[in-house]
């Protein structure tokens, strides 16, 4: 038998202590895994949704609110801006691409977004079923929307006023599902997409009293915001300043706002990280106490190993191997529990139509989990192993 096999037997010769240590270490590692996975997946989700969007232009207000509502569809928008003002930006020399976004309605909590097909191609989304809209009141729904609402191509549905659901239903202007997007892991998965004209039509039909009224409304048409890609990186210096000082709109840089957001969220992450650290420290102490106790309890057995010819490093190695077993098992359990917890949180967030996380992922940062486990186990085992190294054969020979 090899050292690892004997270490395994010795570890489980004290099943209660071994189980408790394993649980403690696994809990600490599960917390670390969870933090790593959630941070990684949120960053990835933000990166995916922000890709290629250099600036968001919308109504004045909180820039972060504008980004959260316009890019991630997590917050309410700051207001609307005149269509003409956005149209004017299309010919701005620093603008390469502009995607209008019109918000206001939702279907069973999923936002209905009036836009252009450029929004879909911006995220390289592809259709799983059906086709893109070709006229107003046709909709293309995201994969999560299809899954959670059960809508198929050809089905009709009516949006309700407001973004949270529960508002007045626009029963006179139902949408028809023209297509369903394949899951892409982007914000599109949880959106109902339609032509900008659809959003205008729904609200103008509901509010216009007569044709003249309709005409006025058409002249005053608005969009909520516009996602803009620069023609040149230099535009980042001048374009926002131009918007903020020369128009009634505001320009918000997503990268800047997300950095601010992550810094704010970072405080919470730090608290969780500290908690995981405390758990790991507790586990380290517990493993130390258990191994120290094992050495004390087995001093004579260890001395016998020396008498049987085992060099001191071999006796110490036996102790270290016990700790390594704990580290390996705890890594396995901790990573599995961390993945499970992330999936659970992801599932909850999905129910709340929030950021997409929770898919099984193995970011390279996860390497730190076994490294941490090994570190904790080795540090905890160092002193007991040294004690085992020093054990004297006289333990066996002393008169009792």
């Amino acid at each position: 038998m090899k050292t690892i096999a004997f270490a395994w037997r010795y570890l489980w010769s004290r099943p209660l202590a071994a189980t408790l240590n394993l649980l403690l270490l696994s809990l600490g590692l599960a917390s670390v895994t969870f933090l790593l996975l959630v941070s990684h997946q949120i960053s990835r989700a933000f990166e995916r949704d922000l890709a290629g969007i250099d600036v968001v232009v919308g109504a004045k207000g909180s820039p972060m609110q504008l980004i959260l509502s316009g890019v991630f569809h997590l917050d309410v928008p700051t207001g609307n801006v005149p269509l003409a003002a956005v149209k004017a930006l299309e010919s701005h020399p620093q603008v390469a691409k502009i995607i209008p976004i019109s918000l206001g309605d939702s279907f069973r909590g999923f936002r209905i977004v009036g836009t252009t097909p450029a929004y879909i191609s911006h995220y390289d989304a592809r259709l799983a079923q059906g086709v893109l809209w070709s006229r107003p009141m046709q909709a293309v729904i995201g994969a999560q929307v299809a899954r959670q609402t059960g809508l198929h191509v050809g089905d009709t549905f009516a949006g309700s006023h407001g973004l949270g659901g529960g508002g007045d239903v626009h029963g006179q202007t139902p949408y028809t599902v023209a297509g369903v997007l394949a899951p892409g892991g982007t914000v599109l998965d949880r959106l109902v997409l339609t032509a900008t004209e659809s959003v205008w039509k729904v609200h103008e039909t509901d509010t216009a009293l007569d044709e003249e009224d309709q005409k006025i409304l058409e002249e005053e048409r608005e969009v909520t915001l516009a996602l803009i890609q620069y023609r040149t990186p230099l535009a980042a210096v001048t374009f926002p300043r131009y918007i903020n000082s020369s128009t009634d709109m505001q320009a918000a840089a997503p990268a800047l706002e997300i950095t601010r957001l992550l810094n704010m969220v970072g405080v919470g992450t730090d608290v969780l990280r500290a908690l995981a650290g405390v758990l790991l420290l507790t586990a380290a102490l517990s493993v130390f106490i258990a191994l120290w106790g094992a050495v004390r309890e087995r001093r004579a057995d260890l001395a016998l190993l020396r008498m049987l010819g085992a060099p001191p490093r071999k006796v110490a190695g036996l102790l270290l191997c016990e700790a390594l077993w704990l580290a390996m098992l705890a890594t396995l359990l901790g990573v599995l529990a961390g993945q499970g917890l992330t999936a659970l949180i992801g599932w909850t967030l999905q129910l709340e139509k929030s950021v997409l996380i929770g898919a099984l992922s193995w970011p390279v940062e996860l390497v730190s989990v076994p490294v941490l486990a090994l570190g904790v186990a080795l540090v905890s085992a160092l002193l007991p192993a040294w004690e085992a190294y020093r054990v004297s054969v006289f333990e066996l020979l002393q008169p009792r």
Partner: protein
Amino acid sequence: MISTRQLAYRYPGGPELRFDDVDVAQGGVLLLRGASGSGKSTWLALAAGLLSPGEGHMTVAGQSIRALGKAAGDAWRAQTIGFLPQRLHLSAALTVHGNLALAQWAAGQPLQEGRIAEALAALDVQALADRRPAQLSGGQAQRVALARAVLLKPSVILADEPTASLDDEAAGASLALLRSTAQQQGATLVIATHDGRVGTFFKDEQGLQSLATGGGRP
């Protein structure tokens, strides 16, 4: 064989322990007699190569103990010395078979199932191979410990107080087992004891050597 000349050892800060010369032929029996703390353990430690003589010479199975280095001492001890401790120290975490496998591991040898089976059969405990030490009687446990001691066919068997806390009948059985096992193996038997019954048991033993230890610390 075991041979000593003017053997002495001094613990740091302690009195010097001096031992009479002995010459024990291969296969002979040496009784180390003396009260607790008289130096028996020190003599055993010297014979096992765990201590180096402060003065004089000690040769065990042709090896000068003084010439043994630490690393070489471990390998030499594994090959040459079989040890039967007073408390048997069978690992409770392992089966009888596992305890013998542990001895092979400690000696740096690969697992040799045939050798383990042979040692268990020689002590008539092969049927107990899968039992845990807690499931053995005192006599069975001693047989298993002796099987472990002779597993690597040592030239010398060191037994530390093998009859302590045994009644007369059990002590006699234990000594008989030790003698017969040593004879089977052709090993020199060294028994450290303060039990008068041991001397009585071996009084007619051919080639018996006796060394009385006394004074100083163990």
